[in-house]
C-alpha cells in the first residue's frame, strides 16, 4: 500500500498523478475464508479491520451486494458524539468517538474528523432536566460533556435565535470533542486498510443463501459462487431481515426511511453541530459550506430510499425558527436512507441462534458515529465470543425485557 502524505501527492504530481495505485484491490472470491463479513458499509469494514488488527484474523472476505460504503455510511449527516445517557450506549459511542480521534493517522487516510463540538438544545424545563441528567451520567462514564447556559450557546452559535417566541433556548448539553467526519472517507479508509492486510473486499456480489451444518454456519452462497467460512458476520443494516431469514432466525426490526438535506454552500457561519430535539431538527455546516440538516423518519416500512416531503417541511420550519438567517438559503438536495430500527431503538450486536453466525444491525438513525466502536466490539465478539462493549446489545434482551432506551433523556434523536 502506497503511503499517503503531502510528499507523496507532490511526488505524484510530477507525473500527473498517473502513478497512484488502487485504494483497494478488486479480487475474485476464494473458496474459503476464516471469516466472512456480509456488508461492506462502515460497520462491516470496521469489523473486518479490527479482526485483522486486534486479533490477527486476516483471512477475511467482506462481501458487498452493491458498492462499498454505498448504503447509510454515505447517506448520513456525519455527526459524531457520545453524549448518550445509558451506560452501554455511552461506552459504545465513546469508544467510537475516541477511535475517530486518531483514525486518520491509523488508517493513513484523512477521514477529516473534526471535533468542532456538538450541542443539544434544551427548550423546555423537561429537556433541561433530561440533559442535566445526561451530563451527570456522562461525567461518570468518562464522556466529557457539560451543561451550558443560553449566553454560551449564543457565543458558540452566533446565528441562533435564543429568544424564539415559541421555544426559547434555555441552555444546552455541550460535547466539545464531538463533531463530524467525512462519511465516505471512513468507508474508503477502512476498505483500503483491510485490503492492505490481504483481506478481500468483493463488491457487486450478492449473498443468496446461508449454509449451515448441525446448527453451525459453514458458508454462504453468492452470485459469485459458494464460499466457505468458519464464522459469519451479518452487517447489512436495512437488509438484515432478509439475511436473518436465510440464516433461519428472525429479528425485532423495522426498516423506515430517514431523510436529510443540504443547502447550497455558503461561507462558514456555524462551527458547531446543533441538535434541537423539541422542534425536531439538527444542523451543521460541512467543510464545503453546505448546511447539513437531518430530519425525521417516516412512520411506515419503506425500502425506496426516498421519503415524504412533509417531514422535510417540518424540519426546515423548525430550523428556520431556530436559525432565522437560513430562510434565504436554498435547499440543494434532499435524500433518504433506509434505517433499521429495533424495538428499543438501540442496536443489536450479538450471537445468533445459528452457531458461528453473528449479527450487527439496528443502528437506526445513529449508526455512523458508532462505526469504529461497533467494529471494535464486533471483532472482539466474533474473535473471542465476548465483548464488554457489545454484551448489553444482545438479541435476547427483547425476550428478557432488558431494554436500552435512549429516548428517556428528553426524547433525544440520534
Amino acid at each position, binding site marked *: 500500500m502506497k503511503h499517503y502524505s503531502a510528499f507523496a501527492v507532490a511526488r505524484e504530481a510530477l507525473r500527473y498523478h498517473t502513478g497512484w495505485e488502487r485504494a483497494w484491490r478488486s479480487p475474485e472470491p476464494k473458496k474459503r475464508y476464516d471469516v466472512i463479513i456480509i456488508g461492506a458499509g462502515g460497520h462491516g469494514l470496521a469489523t473486518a479491520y479490527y479482526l485483522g488488527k486486534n486479533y490477527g484474523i486476516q483471512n477475511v472476505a467482506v462481501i458487498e451486494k452493491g458498492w462499498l460504503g454505498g448504503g447509510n455510511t454515505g447517506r448520513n449527516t456525519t455527526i459524531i458524539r457520545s453524549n448518550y445517557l445509558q451506560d452501554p450506549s455511552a461506552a459504545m459511542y465513546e469508544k467510537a468517538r475516541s477511535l475517530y480521534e486518531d483514525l486518520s493517522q491509523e488508517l493513513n487516510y484523512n477521514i477529516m474528523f473534526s471535533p468542532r463540538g456538538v450541542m443539544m438544545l434544551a427548550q423546555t424545563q423537561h429537556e433541561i432536566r433530561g440533559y442535566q441528567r445526561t451530563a451527570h451520567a456522562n461525567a461518570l462514564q468518562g464522556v466529557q460533556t457539560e451543561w451550558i447556559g443560553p449566553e454560551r450557546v449564543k457565543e458558540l452559535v452566533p446565528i441562533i435565535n435564543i429568544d424564539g417566541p415559541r421555544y426559547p433556548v434555555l441552555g444546552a448539553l455541550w460535547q466539545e470533542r464531538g463533531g463530524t467526519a467525512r462519511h465516505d472517507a471512513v468507508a474508503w479508509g477502512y476498505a483500503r486498510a483491510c485490503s492492505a492486510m490481504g483481506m478481500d473486499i468483493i463488491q457487486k456480489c450478492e449473498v443468496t443463501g446461508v449454509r449451515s451444518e448441525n446448527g453451525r454456519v459453514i458458508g454462504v452462497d453468492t452470485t459469485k459462487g459458494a464460499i466457505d467460512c468458519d464464522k459469519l458476520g451479518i452487517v447489512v443494516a436495512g437488509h438484515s431481515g432478509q439475511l436473518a431469514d436465510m440464516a433461519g432466525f*428472525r429479528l*425485532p426490526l*423495522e426498516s423506515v426511511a430517514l431523510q436529510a438535506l443540504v443547502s447550497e454552500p455558503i461561507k462558514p457561519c456555524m462551527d458547531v453541530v446543533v441538535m434541537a430535539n423539541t422542534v425536531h431538527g439538527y444542523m451543521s455546516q460541512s467543510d464545503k459550506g453546505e448546511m447539513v440538516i437531518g430530519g425525521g423518519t417516516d412512520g*411506515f*416500512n419503506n*425500502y*425506496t430510499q426516498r421519503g415524504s416531503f412533509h417531514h422535510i417541511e417540518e424540519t426546515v420550519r423548525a430550523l428556520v425558527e431556530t436559525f432565522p438567517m437560513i430562510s434565504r438559503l436554498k435547499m440543494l438536495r434532499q435524500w433518504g436512507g433506509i434505517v433499521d430500527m*429495533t424495538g428499543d431503538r438501540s442496536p443489536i450486536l450479538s450471537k445468533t441462534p445459528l452457531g458461528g453466525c453473528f449479527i450487527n444491525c439496528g443502528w437506526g438513525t445513529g449508526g455512523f458515529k458508532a462505526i469504529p466502536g461497533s467494529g471494535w466490539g464486533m471483532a472482539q465478539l466474533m474473535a473471542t465470543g465476548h465483548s464488554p462493549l457489545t454484551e448489553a446489545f444482545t438479541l435476547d434482551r*427483547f*425476550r428478557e425485557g432488558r431494554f436500552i432506551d435512549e429516548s428517556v433523556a428528553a426524547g433525544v434523536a440520534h
Partner: protein
Amino acid sequence: MLTLKCPFTGALLDETELNCGGEAHRKRFGPGSSDEDFETYMFTRENPRGVHFELWLHSYGIGKWFIAARDTETMEVYGTYPAQTTEPPQEVIDAINAKHPGWTWREFS
C-alpha cells in the same frame, strides 16, 4: 407522500392526515403465554420487502383505524379495509395475487 383510501368513507386520504400504526394482524399474547410468544408479539416484525399489511389511523379526520395492504418497495396499495377484522378480505387478497402470484405474508397467501 402516500394516499390511502378510507374504507369507511371512501375518501382519498393524504399521508399528512394519517399516522401509521405498524404491522397489522398481530395476535396478542397476554398472561399465560410463553416468553417467546410474547417477544414475537411485541417485537418481531415481518418487515417485508414487498407486500405488507399495516395499520393506519385517520388521525386528522374521523379517528378510525384501518388496514392497508401496501408494497414497501413500489408503494403500490392493493387495498384498504377496516381494522376490525382478523384477516384481509378476499378482494384484497385477489388484488395482491394479480400482481404477486405466490406471495405469502405470515399465515396469509
